[in-house]
């Protein structure tokens, strides 16, 4: 894992990067690539598209929480703001407000504003320590929700924007199920790899150092506050990408997109999946989307009202927090460990 580590085998004959990727990555990668061949449009667009998008937003929280030790509830707000900005600078059905600028200006501008907002949020949140972060970011999320709901000049108030569509690039309709699947998959993979890579780069290492022992990091010359704020800025890039994709998926953005409920949902996703590794964000998102899509039918089938979905999510969340603080990833690790203790197999829990 370690950056500076050098195992003797690699020194002798450097492995090419292809050989260093574990086998299961190839398997999952191949499955995801050929998915559109056999999966229905609904599965591609609703299940996987949504999973990847929520996964990206939860990933931004995982980066802050897992590597930085800062649990921010404002990541959905950053995502929502990016969505709003795309609607305002680009095209939407609300022609009185939308500026209809070309996508290559609107999208970077939207991301830049989201990053600015995320950085400011971080700057406010890191002024106090640890557990206060969750309170402050929740309050900021709520403020954003109420503000956009009441502001009609820029944010079109209660109804927000509809008809926000992805640009017609290369003559492809990017909201078509297959195209949208690949679009979201592409960005999910990019974001996932970026987080994985940065976690072992100096910035990511230092962030984890600040999480574990801020005082020690200061004594090594690091400015802990600056590192934390920078982490918020990077997380805002991820959340912004997720927010733009989310807006395109539903073709609309409204105050409800970035309300308190969705803000909490992102936390639920990240915690259910597990905050120790970036893949947890996507596992959590997948579980959440499956539940949200099928729980209604399942609940009705067992004789309960479909609205009890929230109860299910809440109880599931409680169970995870109670028994496996590292989420589903933690359960997985424990299972492997218990398997590894099998005396007949006689091998450690370490996988390939």
């Amino acid at each position, binding site marked *: 894992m370690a950056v500076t580590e050098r195992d003797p085998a690699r020194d002798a004959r450097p492995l090419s990067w292809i050989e260093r990727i574990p086998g299961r990555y190839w398997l999952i990668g191949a499955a995801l690539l050929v998915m559109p061949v056999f999966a229905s449009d609904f599965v591609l667009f609703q299940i996987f598209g949504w999973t990847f998008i929520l996964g990206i937003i939860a990933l931004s929280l995982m980066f802050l929480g897992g590597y930085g030790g800062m*649990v921010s509830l404002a990541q959905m707000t950053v995502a929502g703001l990016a969505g709003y900005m795309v609607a305002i600078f680009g095209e939407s059905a609300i022609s009185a407000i939308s500026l209809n600028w070309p996508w290559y200006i609107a999208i970077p501008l939207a991301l830049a504003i989201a990053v600015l907002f995320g950085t400011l949020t971080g700057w*406010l949140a890191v*002024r*106090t320590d*640890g*557990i*206060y972060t*969750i*309170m*402050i970011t*929740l*309050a*900021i999320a*709520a*403020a954003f929700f*109420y*503000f956009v709901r*009441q*502001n009609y000049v820029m944010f079109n108030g209660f109804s927000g924007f509809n008809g926000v569509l992805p640009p017609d690039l290369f003559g492809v309709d990017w909201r078509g199920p297959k195209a949208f699947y690949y679009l979201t998959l592409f960005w999910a993979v990019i974001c996932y790899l970026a987080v994985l890579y940065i976690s072992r780069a100096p910035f990511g290492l230092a962030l984890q150092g600040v999480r574990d022992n801020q005082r020690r990091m200061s004594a090594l010359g690091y400015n802990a506050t600056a590192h934390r704020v920078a982490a918020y800025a990077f997380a805002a890039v991820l959340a912004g990408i997720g927010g733009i994709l989310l807006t395109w998926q539903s073709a609309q953005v409204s105050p409800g997109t970035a309300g*308190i409920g969705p803000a*909490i949902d992102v*936390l*639920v996703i990240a*915690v259910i999946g597990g905050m120790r590794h970036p893949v947890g964000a996507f596992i959590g998102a997948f579980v959440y989307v499956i539940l949200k899509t099928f729980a209604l039918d399942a609940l009705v089938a067992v004789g309960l*009202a479909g*609205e*009890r979905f*929230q*109860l299910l*999510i*809440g*109880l599931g*969340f*409680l169970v995870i*927090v*109670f028994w496996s*603080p590292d989420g589903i990833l933690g359960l997985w690790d424990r299972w492997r460990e218990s398997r590894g203790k099998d005396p007949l197999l006689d091998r450690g829990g370490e996988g390939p």
Partner: protein
Amino acid sequence: MRAFADRHPFWSLVILVLAAVLLWMIFAIWPDWLEDLIGRKKVFLNALFNGITLGGLYFLVASGFTLIFGLMRNVNLAHGSLYLLGGYLGYVTADVTGYWLLAFPVSFILVGAFGILLQIFVFRRMEGQDLRQTLVTIGISIVMADLMLWIWGGDFYNISPPEWLSGPMSTFFVTGAKSSGELVYMKYPMVRIVIFAASVVVGVGMWLLLNRTRIGMLIRAGVDDRDMLSATGARIQLVFVAVFAFGAGLAGVAGVVGGTFQSIAPGEDVRFLLASLVVVIVGGMGSIQGAALGALIIGMAEQFGSVYFPTYAVVLTFLIMVAVLAFRPQGLMGRN
């Protein structure tokens, strides 16, 4: 107070001048130019009174929150749910028995008991894990919100105060003068004044409890330095349970008050959770005086905001919060 004046002579002067202006605005008969500028005095006085009484309600909710936070470092994000539960229980009690006053002790005891269960079965099992405790409270609030929706549905409930409290009350505040020279006095709902007085009594009571009793000293010592509390050999678990029960009970009582002032419905839990968060951030975490000051500021900001700049009333509240965070991150009355 004296120390503050010595350290910040300029700000003391500003506060003094503002207080004088406010007093004048409350007691004087407004000249025409002022009415032209910001509207009628009656509107102003009403906003002021509503702000103060709303502040009283916020104080009831937030003081429990801040006490629990200060002592146990537990950001109880289910606090709003406790408020809502108290409101529903109070409604049922008042509805079934017909006694409005009975709603208060019933809510206090039941919600307080629920708080005890939470403390013993949930928080004690993950002591010292701040983040995990907070996550659990989120889960609890999601579950509670849905259970309450299941039981009581999405309707608005209003707890009606008894006859002798429901009318308006004449006050000695002058709102203006008729052309005949006769003075017009302000009328204000009796129940709001009574409830505000009650929350002042609760506040003063808490202050006395914390500052004049042994258990209060223990709690304050625990807020300042939690290691010390366990070092004194105090039965710390008992103190934790008591404080959690009391804080939860207060939220329950506040629910009854809120149900009488306004109404209770799904979503009010989040609203009052946020109000508590903002009040505590502005006032200073773990400080009862801070909660009182913060509640007053936020209550006033909301009411004056909704009268004088209706579109951005809520945003005003959060602007205050951001300003406090930027310049005094520990809160107005908080310590470093």
